[in-house]
């Protein structure tokens, strides 16, 4: 059932196949992986599987360069989270790191070689104004000055407009939930905060393992625009492989998905990590989440869309239907975030502004 539509996905699913990759294919593997933001993760994968001596000389320098960037990223996360904690000391309650920043500070395998540009944190909604004020006092400024954007974020979204530090230029997303207020699914953020666990020696918190998987799944299948879909899928696969070694994890995962109203994203996560990356999911877990599957026809359509949308956005992976699939997934992600009476004016506004931007260049 596995459908490895790209060389990158094939290598991530079965790292040892890299032994048979020719120099011509290395050329392609690097280009696909770079476009998918997976080049440094490819490097980490190769090292973790003891395959470093299979990398041909011309390819090696690209992996070295990507690794240097990933190492910088890791240092930035350590420093940024230290600075955020200082700014929010005594202001926002526990600071819960989300996504990449959490993986990095927990030292999870999913963090190895992961490139990302911003830090995401979750704070209780009733503390978010105080948190924002305090961050502004410490040099973070809102990146959106447009009144419409400000209102859009504050009224409908699950996060403040992104903030950028004036001196360090790093970007911070402050969330009070993991999905917009207007979304069709309604995870309760209080439950996420309650279950969050301290990260040793840092003063920071991370969601419990099952919640990290569910958030990653929700972000990929119900919130994001899939620009780095394969990278997000590799995250999920890595989290599942890592936490899945403990047997209790799987039952907890299903239990939390029910509690948080996130069964559908979990279904997709398990389906597509298996389909693209050959992740192993216990049979009883697969049966449990099957109830959350879309109906057969819709399921076939989703497969057709995600098979394209989750491949690297690289010309070597494009077919005639790819553009349409990406557009359909883009519209879908917005529909899941907002009911139509809000969505249509928002998309119109976005597209009109885009045209203005294009002619003003």
């Amino acid at each position, binding site marked *: 059932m596995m459908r490895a539509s790209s060389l990158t996905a094939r290598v991530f699913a079965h790292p040892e196949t890299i032994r048979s990759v*020719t*120099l*011509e294919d290395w*050329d392609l593997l690097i280009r696909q992986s770079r476009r998918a933001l997976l080049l440094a993760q490819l490097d980490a994968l190769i090292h973790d599987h003891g395959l470093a001596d299979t990398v041909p000389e011309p390819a090696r320098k690209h992996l070295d360069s990507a*690794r*240097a*960037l990933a*190492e910088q990223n890791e240092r930035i996360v350590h420093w940024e989270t230290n600075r955020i904690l200082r700014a929010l000391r005594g202001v926002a309650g526990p600071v819960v790191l989300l996504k990449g920043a959490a993986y990095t500070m927990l030292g999870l395998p999913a963090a190895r070689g992961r490139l990302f540009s911003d830090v995401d944190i979750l704070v209780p909604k009733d503390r978010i104004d105080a948190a924002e004020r305090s961050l502004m006092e410490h040099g973070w400024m809102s990146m959106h000055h447009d009144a419409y954007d400000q209102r859009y974020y504050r009224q409908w979204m699950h996060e403040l407009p992104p903030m950028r530090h004036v001196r360090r230029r790093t970007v911070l997303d402050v969330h009070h939930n993991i999905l917009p207020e207007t979304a069709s699914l309604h995870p309760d953020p209080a439950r996420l905060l309650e279950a969050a666990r301290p990260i040793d020696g840092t003063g920071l918190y991370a969601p419990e393992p099952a919640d990290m998987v569910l958030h990653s799944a929700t972000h990929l299948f119900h919130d994001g625009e899939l620009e780095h879909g394969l990278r997000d899928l590799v995250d999920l696969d890595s989290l599942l492989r890592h936490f899945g070694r403990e047997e209790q994890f799987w039952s907890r995962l299903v239990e939390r998905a029910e509690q948080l109203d996130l069964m559908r994203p979990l279904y997709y996560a398990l389906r597509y990590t298996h389909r693209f990356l050959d992740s192993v999911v216990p049979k009883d877990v697969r049966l449990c989440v099957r109830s959350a599957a879309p109906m057969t026809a819709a399921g076939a359509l989703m497969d057709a869309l995600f098979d394209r949308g989750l491949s690297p956005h690289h010309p070597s992976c494009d077919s005639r239907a790819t553009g349409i699939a990406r557009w359909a997934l883009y519209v879908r992600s917005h529909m899941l975030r907002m009911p139509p009476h809000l969505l249509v004016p928002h998309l119109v506004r976005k597209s009109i502004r885009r045209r203005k931007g294009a002619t003003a260049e």
Partner: protein
Amino acid sequence: MKVSDWSYRDLAGAMAGDGVFLHLGPFVTHLRCAIPLVAEGVHALYADYRCERQAAFADFRVRLGPPRGVRRWYRSQVLFYFDDWPPFKPLPYNQAFAMFEWGMNWCITSHSQQHLMLHGAVVEKNGWGAMLPGPPGSGKSTLCAALVNRGWRLLSDELTVVRTDDLLLQPLPRPVSLKNRSIEIIAEFAPEAKIGTPARDTDKGTVAHMKPPPGCVEQADQLATPAWLVLPKYIGSAPPVLTPLAKGDALMQAVDNAFNYSVLGVRGFDAAAQLIDGCDCYRFSYSSLDDAMRVFAELADGSQ
């Protein structure tokens, strides 16, 4: 096969068709482009580089062409594509070759983050390297162009690559970028220098590229040991003055002129500090290139 072994017709035809594989030091670039200005520039200024129709592996897949969409019909423009993706906004068509050069700089710097890269020229004599870091406008390119026409070997006019493992300087000889008055100054200073068609009205004014002098492309695999760090400053009608620079200040200058110092973390600090440790560091103000040649010749003699 070198570019000079190709007829212009064959080269332009291959570039417009399946593309050519151009060997630039350690990097292989697959170049596709149907713009005559670019083919002419490559044919004239890259004559000494290896160029093939086939290669198993390319470091960079580069294409230059008109942007898609409406714009192409009312304003003639050119875009630089890296692996089918345009990292920059389009430029006027007459700047196509300059855009190729700038795009190649971007390709190399963006994908060599494991090395310490300083913005600046670097030249070599007797195995010893002189680094001339400096922001645009400091006159480093002019000085570099003059030096490489007087017996110094060109490693690069823009990009000093210091390998963090052995602290040797990696040559990346490419055409030397000359701006505005520098073009005439060098044409007069070194009449034998081959300078390409100027692109006018770019963001940097008029820009022309000088062909790397003979020999430096062939020696691109010979690394140099850093010996001098010189901060050049052109000051009209000033006498040539070479002033020693305190090492701490030299380090801060290197850091300020680095492309990727922050990427490398402590590895960058160690490399930069060791680099400075091993170099004689100076500020250098001058107005006449002949004076400057004399000062650099004395530097080189002192090292023997």
